[in-house]
């Protein structure tokens, strides 16, 4: 199960990727849309976790770019922003929309659900 995590908070995304790796996921991470595209161009991913608010290219815009390259890929939005407007828009676009800080078990349940799998951990 290969995941790509994209968030401009390096310490957050790096550590979350490590924690997911400890739980059996193959998780790469990027801190910008530009870096994320390099990963997408070089490997296949089953699901992307995207921060909604990022400098230059945000998660919602990046989702559209990724979907053109990997049609059907599942998406979970992560955000610290939390406006009602963003929540409704994000919930409609992605499989799930989770607020930071996140609970790792909840995240894994959402990932597995999005991928239609039984819980791995």
């Amino acid at each position, binding site marked *: 199960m290969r995941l790509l995590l994209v968030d401009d908070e390096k*310490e957050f995304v790096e*550590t979350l990727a490590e924690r997911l790796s*400890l739980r059996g996921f193959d998780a790469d991470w990027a801190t910008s849309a530009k870096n994320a595209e390099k990963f997408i161009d070089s490997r296949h991913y089953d699901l992307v976790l995207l921060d909604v608010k990022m400098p230059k290219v*945000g998660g919602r815009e990046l989702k559209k770019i990724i979907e053109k390259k990997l049609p059907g890929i599942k998406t979970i939005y992560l955000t*610290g*922003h939390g406006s009602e407007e963003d929540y409704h828009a994000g919930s409609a676009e992605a499989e799930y929309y989770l607020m*930071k*800080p*996140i609970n*790792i078990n909840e995240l894994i349940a959402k990932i597995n659900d999005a991928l239609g799998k039984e819980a791995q951990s």
Partner: protein
Amino acid sequence: MTHPLDPIGEAGLRFYSKVSASISHEIRNSLAVINESAGYLEDVTRMAKKGGNVDMNRLETLAGSMLKQVQRANTIVKNMNRLAHSLDDPAARTDLNTLLELMLHLSERTTVTRGVKVSAAFSEPPVIITTHPFFVENLIWLILDFAMDISGDEKTIELQPVKTASGAKINFAGLDQLTQNAFENFQTEPVTLMLCALKSTLQPDEKKGMITLNLPENISQPAQ
């Protein structure tokens, strides 16, 4: 029966709520890093109890990361506190260097998200005037919001406080796409009322790509 909001009050609330939203976002980000770092420590501790190896260097990095995030969150809270207290005195002795520094912090998330770099050339010695700090902060917020739309290809805005004979001015430079028409559209009712309340003026300079906010030495004294 409905009571219309006064424009300057509504603008102030909008400013305060936008800053509050941005600050809560920043604090959530700090909490998220701390949460993952603490979670990772828990993960490796459990693994160690079962006989697994622990990378001590990684643990040291994570501890440093958590300390850094606590400091970051503390700075955010301090800035929020400073903003909240800027309503305490409607005629306060105000160091424009300090006020601009606060505004750079408070607007950072917004400016970075919009891909604009905002910096300040602080004055030495500091420019100190007697003014209503909250109105000045609100006005700077509105000018920055406008300035980001007209910052041209460079996407760089520089703020500079300068001492003048009648008080002080703050220059907003780097507005390459500034036009008279755009400037007139920016001067909405709240902006005009805020300028009036501060006894100040806004002056555009299309050639230089700059807007100047002129502030009096003392807001309590009659306008000259």
